């Protein structure tokens, strides 16, 4: 459970987003409150159209809320300009998109290093960080390849490496294992677990319940509102491994 003493990294109150056009008004997010302490791993699940991605995009500054407030590390950010948001994303927030958005005419290595450089790393630091991340994601052999030469699973992992290049205090990810095979999903899951263990906060949207069950907290979204918010420590009583194994017969 999260104690009050833990610092809040992200706080959203009364967040709404309504899309309108052609006389049709579509409320996508309808009053979401959210608190994410430093270092917490939160998964958001829900059917398509429940507002998951819209919520994530608002929290990453890609979509402006219709109403409500977003506070990041004590600073109110919902009204920031696109340019200020870009700076925030470069330095404090890693964002993994559902469709990678890699720079296609740069190598895999350069894609990752660029993100580190833009986050303020020296060339040497950026290189070291890139090597570390690609090795962790079993991509070291692909460092000099063009992203388009890679499989979907590999591209997704590069996108993740890029988002983590500047060690953001908050990682936002939209379906990071969407369309990945089981082995690639496991690699992504491993990297998320390592990032989480090193104190990074993670907020991700996922259909993959294997990913969701790895989180500290699972939030269920339905019709733009939170219908359940549950700490995994409540639903899963961790048993020492020998006990799990002894359950047989």
């Amino acid at each position, binding site marked *: 459970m999260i104690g009050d003493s833990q610092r809040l990294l992200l706080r959203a109150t009364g967040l709404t987003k309504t899309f309108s056009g052609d006389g049709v008004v579509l409320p996508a997010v309808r009053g979401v409150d959210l608190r994410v302490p430093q270092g917490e791993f939160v998964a958001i*699940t*829900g*059917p398509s159209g429940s507002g998951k991605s819209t919520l994530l995009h608002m929290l990453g500054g890609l979509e402006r809320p219709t109403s409500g407030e977003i506070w990041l590390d004590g600073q109110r950010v919902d009204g920031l300009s696109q340019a200020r948001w870009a700076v925030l994303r470069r330095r404090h927030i890693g964002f993994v998109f559902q469709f990678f958005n890699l720079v296609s005419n740069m190598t895999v290595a350069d894609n990752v290093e660029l993100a580190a450089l833009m986050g303020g790393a020296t060339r040497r630091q950026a290189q070291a960080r890139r090597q570390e991340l690609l090795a962790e994601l079993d991509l070291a052999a692909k460092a000099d390849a063009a992203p388009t030469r890679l499989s979907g699973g590999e591209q997704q992992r590069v996108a993740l490496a890029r988002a983590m290049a500047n060690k953001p205090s908050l990682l936002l990810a939209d379906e990071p294992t969407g369309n990945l095979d*089981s082995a690639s999903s496991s690699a992504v899951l491993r990297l998320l677990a390592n990032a989480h263990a090193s104190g990074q906060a993670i907020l991700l949207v996922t*259909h*993959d*319940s*294997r990913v*969701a*069950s*790895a989180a500290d907290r*699972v939030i*269920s979204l*339905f019709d733009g509102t939170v*219908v*359940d918010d*549950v700490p*995994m420590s*409540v*639903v*899963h*009583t961790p*048993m020492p*491994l020998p006990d*799990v*194994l002894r*359950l*047989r*017969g």
Partner: protein
Amino acid sequence: MHGYVTMKIRCCWPARQQASTGGRGYAMRMPLLALLAKEPAHGYELKSQLEQIFGEAYPTPNIGQIYVTLQRLERDGLVQSQDVVQATRPNKRVYELTGAGREALLSWIDRTSEGPRVRDDFFMKLVLSQMSGTSDRLGLINRQRRHYLGQMRSLTDLAAVTSSQIPRLLIEGAILHLQADLDWLQRCQEELV
């Protein structure tokens, strides 16, 4: 804890279709026949072979269940046994497959297996709870989802420490079934809440 074991059993031996042929031991019959098709063996050997193949992913029956099942198989003419005299230890009873046993095994292997479950306990509750007048479908779904997520965590933890192939595949199967259950829960929520 109990639910955890039940969940694992669900995706494996055919435990249902033979309720008429006799009790809890039935799920053990085909695995034992299959092991005996390779070579004659006694009860403890069969137990340790099962453990070796399925590892931590499957609850191995205790030795008592194995002996009871062997006796029933013998009664039905599918195996036969004889006592083997051992110099320094008590006699052991060695079982071997009969022709009828081999036939039963082959016909089990050739038969297609049961498809997905169509009658789900939770689904029955979800539909019938309306009758009680105290129905809170969203609450029911949320509770069930929490439960599944907890099981999912147990299984992924188990998968992370399981390296041998057969147990790993068995756990992966259970994870996929559970994922489907969670997806279905979401569909129920979309349609019924």
